[in-house]
């Protein structure tokens, strides 16, 4: 990373960290006001013309603060989807509205929120009355309250995106409460939603690759969050271990505690490497992005669960209380691990290379 970028990232990180420390929940208008909704959109459409690398900084800080926001669905996946589509006046207008925060969208990308196989959850059929959309997508981030939904659909086996208003007849968005209360997930069902041809938007470039890259982006976004929350928990544990005394000494002076903290740092250090490599691969749209994304998602989200679990353990009784808030991180880490492909599912993707010859 060049010096200029690093400076910008440091600045962004510090601003984000200050803002996110104020409140556990950050409302949509505030995200827009901070300029985070438009980071990746081009400047002529009201965006900042930055890249996924900058978005990753915000994601990591949101993980660190366990922020409740619609950023992943409303911005990271929405903007990622819109910039992957063929430019047009209507596409540009929506991208601009999403970038400025005027409109909130969500993306229904997969059937069950964890499938690493890119098969579109919706299908388009032509009927005498027009185009008819049917399908179901579960665990869609931030769909509840979105103004419009971007549905990944198959049109004669070619993936496209259908843009539907939340009020469309036959379209339902039902919240799916999960143990992690910091995320808003919903099941999106299209039961014969009628749309016209202008609502069907095509991918720019090879549709299969574009969809793959969107899933990679989703996986890496979650991995960034996991790195941030793991770092927060290590830091909290180290602070606690330095002040909490038992047997007449700070518990952090005991090797059992110290070495556990060292292991947390090692895992986080490895996760950081894999995640920053994946962020770069997504930002540069490299052909190895899928591999880098699977590595990062698999390692970082699993490591975060271990790290937060260890944080709860080392905090002792207080760590298990609702009051301590560690459970918030453990639940979020566990959800991150499952969302957009389990570590095992991503490793299975990677392993295809070995039987085919490396």
């Amino acid at each position: 990373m060049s010096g200029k970028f690093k400076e910008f990232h440091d600045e962004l990180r510090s601003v984000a960290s200050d803002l996110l420390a104020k409140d556990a929940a950050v409302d949509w208008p505030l995200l827009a006001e901070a300029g985070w909704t438009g980071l990746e959109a081009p400047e002529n459409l009201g965006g900042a013309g930055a890249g996924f690398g900058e978005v990753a900084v915000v994601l990591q800080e949101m993980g660190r603060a366990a922020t409740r926001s619609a950023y992943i669905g409303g911005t990271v996946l929405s903007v990622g989807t819109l910039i992957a589509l063929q430019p047009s006046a209507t596409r540009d207008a929506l991208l601009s509205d999403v970038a400025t925060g005027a409109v909130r969208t969500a993306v229904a990308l997969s059937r069950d929120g964890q499938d690493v196989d890119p098969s579109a959850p919706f299908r388009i059929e032509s009927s005498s009355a027009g185009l008819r959309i049917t399908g179901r997508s579960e665990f869609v981030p931030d769909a509840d309250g979105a103004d419009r939904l971007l549905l990944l659909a198959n049109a004669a086996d070619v993936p496209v995106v259908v843009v539907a208003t939340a009020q469309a007849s036959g379209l339902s968005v039902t919240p799916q409460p999960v143990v992690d209360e910091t995320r808003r997930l919903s099941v999106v069902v299209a039961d014969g939603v009628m749309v016209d041809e202008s609502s069907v938007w095509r991918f720019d470039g090879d549709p299969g690759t574009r969809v793959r890259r969107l899933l990679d982006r989703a996986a890496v976004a979650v991995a960034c969050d996991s790195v941030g929350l793991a770092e927060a928990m290590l830091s909290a544990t180290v602070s606690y271990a330095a002040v909490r005394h038992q047997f007449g000494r700070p518990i952090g002076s005991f090797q059992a505690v110290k070495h556990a903290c060292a292991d947390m740092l090692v895992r986080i250090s490895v996760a950081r490497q894999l995640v920053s490599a994946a962020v770069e691969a997504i930002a540069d749209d490299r052909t190895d992005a899928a591999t880098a994304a699977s590595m990062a998602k698999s390692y970082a989200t699993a490591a975060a669960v271990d790290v937060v679990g260890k944080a709860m353990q080392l905090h002792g009784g207080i760590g298990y209380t609702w009051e301590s808030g560690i459970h918030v991180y453990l639940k979020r880490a566990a959800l991150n691990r499952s969302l957009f492909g389990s570590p095992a599912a991503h490793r299975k993707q990677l392993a295809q290379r070995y039987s085919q010859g490396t």
Partner: protein
Amino acid sequence: MTPTADLDEFRATVRAWCDEHVPSDWRRAQTDVDDEQFVDFQKWWFQELRAAGFAVPHWPREWGGGMSVAEQIILYRELAAHDAPRLVLAFVGIHHAASTLLAAGTQEQLQRHLPAILGGEIWVQGFSEPEAGSDLASLRTSARRDGDSYVINGQKLWASGGMHADWCLLLARTDPDAAKRKGISYFLLDMSTAGVDVRPIRNAIGESHFCEIFLNDVKIPAANLVGAENAGWQVAQATLGAERGLTMLELAERLGHAGFRWLVEACRRGRLIEDAVVQDKLAQFDIEITGLRGLCRDLVERSETGTAGAADASVVKLFYSELLQRLTDFGAEIGGLAAHTQLTKPISSGWESGSWVLDFIGSWEWTIPGGSSEIQRTIIGERGLGLPREPSAVG
């Protein structure tokens, strides 16, 4: 920073050189060889690399190095990708001895030793002792000033390659009354001096590269003191961590190339490659090796810019050691009984030679020496995270 186009050109140069110079059959040829053949092979390979300008890329330009960090990374990657032999024998000389002298040596010491190292002089590290392993600072070997010399008495242990060494990096106690880290001095010892007795120790895999060095009234000229008297601990500390970046990068690249490739091949041979559990393990190792390579590159770059954290090298050493152990363990499991019939492994190879059972047993040579995994965790906890020290901490 070197422009990308120049780096591409450099990569092409290294590749072409490797294609031409890396012997294709060295693994077979270096299995079951005697000491003399091993030493000859190592010295030959060192001179090959030297002639190409690849032997000491990390040294300053005036001493025969001068490669940028980006170029060094490419060099080690390509050597690993071409499965070149490792510089086992020259290791202490080109890394520890050179960096110690460059950091704390006199001009005379540099002039005397750096060209000689390039010429093939072999070095050994005389740090550990029977009673000073993980607690290195409690070492007892004494150095008593006598006119223009020091007289050394004591015993060193785990001196790798000691029987082939021309010179030794020696830590000895010059002030028995000072706090234990404050009474140690750093010496250069000519191994042909009277009173030096080297005896090999057979290790767990049957090799004898570790040595005991007995020092009985050994005279070292005062000119061979490195740094100030009683400042030896600081001299040793300053150069140990700095060296870890590049040497670890090389090992990580080897693990990522030949090491992982052999693991996949072992799985194929055992007809286990389609097994879901095996695939999962392979993917896990692939991911961890990728993470390790990133960590090493990061450490090298940070060391260069002086921004490395106090425990970054320990993170890398700990992670590599334990990853190597788990990976060779898996290789031994996958290799089945056939792996147990491989009674020797090629010398001059990396720590994953493909003789999995021996590699697995040999992996403790990483988790124990150079600061055991337990010591690394303590360093990471205390220097990396700032956790409180043990109340009984001394020195």
